[in-house]
């Protein structure tokens, strides 16, 4: 595989040097006779220069042909799919091209398999997920893991409401309205939080776990068009770039503060983090000292110290 790559790289380099030679030639041609050619015999010198460039182009062309012939072809040229090769012996050639299509689709699925293996390796490095099954378990471990499975989405509705009212009381400038979209399903809860006169957010809970956060400006509404009472529009993005960015950061914070063993601490920490946005327009970035970077205020709050940073300044 490496030999093929080297040969390919050589060929690509040769092609790019050929292209730059041709480019130089056309540049010289467009500039015509220049002052550098001196006073005497200007045209002769110019023609000599052009001839040099043409000679360089032809030598680069030979090099390109040589390196291209060095690239090894894939072995056997064609993939052999066993008995299906007989499909290619169809008498009327234009009736079907089934075998060649078969070969094409086989190559495609092969490549897909290879790429998805590599992707799985990349995605498995991301620990920001909260699913309760690990696909790499052997079946013997399942029983033990199930006992330790976190069940913070199964808590009683009164404890969830207790935490929320405590947070409401704790922060003076943060008001919380509770909505219950499915009265029969006691585990789903949505709250609308308004922070000062800066922003409004809807947070959707599943038991004690925060599932969905959307942040908008204070004067943007979360009502659905149909006007059904008690229904919040959770999905429309804010009109402003600032609040779209803060929604992304809030989703990151929600994942960061997720803790299956201490669910109410998770919710409290998230609310404290959200509360730090009351100084969104007045704070300067801790690193660069400015209010604005690319016309955006500091939209990142550090998870531990709650310091304000611009998106590009965050440590």
């Amino acid at each position: 595989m490496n030999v093929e790559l080297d040969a390919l790289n050589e060929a690509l380099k040769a092609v790019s040097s050929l292209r730059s030679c041709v480019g130089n030639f056309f540049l010289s041609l467009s500039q015509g006779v220049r002052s550098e050619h001196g006073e005497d015999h200007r045209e002769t010198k110019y023609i000599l220069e052009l001839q040099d460039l043409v000679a360089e182009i032809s030598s680069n062309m030979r090099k390109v042909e040589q390196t291209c012939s060095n690239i090894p072809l894939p072995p056997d040229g064609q993939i052999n799919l066993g008995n299906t090769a007989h499909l290619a012996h169809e008498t009327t050639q234009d009736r079907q091209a089934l075998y060649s299509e078969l070969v094409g689709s086989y190559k495609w699925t092969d490549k897909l398999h290879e790429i998805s293996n590599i992707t799985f390796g990349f995605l498995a490095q991301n620990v920001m997920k909260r699913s309760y099954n690990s696909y790499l378990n052997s079946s013997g471990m399942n029983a033990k893991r199930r006992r330790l499975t976190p069940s913070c989405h199964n808590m009683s509705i009164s404890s969830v409401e207790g935490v929320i009212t405590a947070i409401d009381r704790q922060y003076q400038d943060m008001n919380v309205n509770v909505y219950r979209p499915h009265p029969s399903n006691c585990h789903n809860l949505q709250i609308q939080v308004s922070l000062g006169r800066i922003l409004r957010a809807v947070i959707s809970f599943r038991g004690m776990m925060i599932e969905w956060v959307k942040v908008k400006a204070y004067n943007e509404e979360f009502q659905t068009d149909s006007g059904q009472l008690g229904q919040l529009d959770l999905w429309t993005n804010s009109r402003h770039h600032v609040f779209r960015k803060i929604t992304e950061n809030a989703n990151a914070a929600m994942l960061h503060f997720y803790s299956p063993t201490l669910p109410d601490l998770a919710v409290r920490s998230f609310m404290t983090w959200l509360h730090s946005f009351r100084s969104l327009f007045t704070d300067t970035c801790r690193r660069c000292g400015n209010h604005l970077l690319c016309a955006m205020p500091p939209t990142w709050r550090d998870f531990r110290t709650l310091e304000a940073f611009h998106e590009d300044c965050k440590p």
Partner: protein
Amino acid sequence: MGVTILLSYPVPENKTGPQTAELLIKRIGALGAVQSGQFLVDCETFSSGPTMGGPPRTVHVLHNSEQPAAVFALLESPGPPPKTVPLVADGLFDLLMLKMSSIYASKKQTRMEARGTRFEIADFLVKIGTVTMSSNFKGVLVEVEYRPCFIAGNCWELMREFMQSFLGSVVQNTPPPYFQVHNRLNDVYQPLDTIQQYLDHFASYRKVAGL
């Protein structure tokens, strides 16, 4: 409607008004702004005739292309005490004023307008316009709006930094005089505040002797 600051940019000695506007447009383009149309703010002044009795009162009728369905009218009654009564109405108000031409006469030669291009950059809206009074150039006005915030006191520092980045030292370190009265820094900002700022600037341009 976000907080809007209106600033009069002084035209340097060796340049004309349109050249100054071009210079500002180049600067804002260098910051990455995208042009998004034209804007027009115009002001027509009507003054009451002798049939009304009492001292003459003026009505300024303004239109802003940012609020195309609205007509703003400001009645200045000299006193005592002198007060300004604002009104926001829909387009039919223009026709109403036409009907009242016997009571309120329009002074056509004092019609002022600010016209120019508007630019958008992130959540900012910048309008650079030239002010003309009956085709005579009067000055260059720059309007900067920060859409997410509608409390002036919250975002004054942020807006000052933004404006200084392309206007330079023309921008003062204190909020403009419009915001320093009546606790306007902590009030919810309305489109009428923009119109009142325009009116203040138009009035100062009218006082300057013909350019």
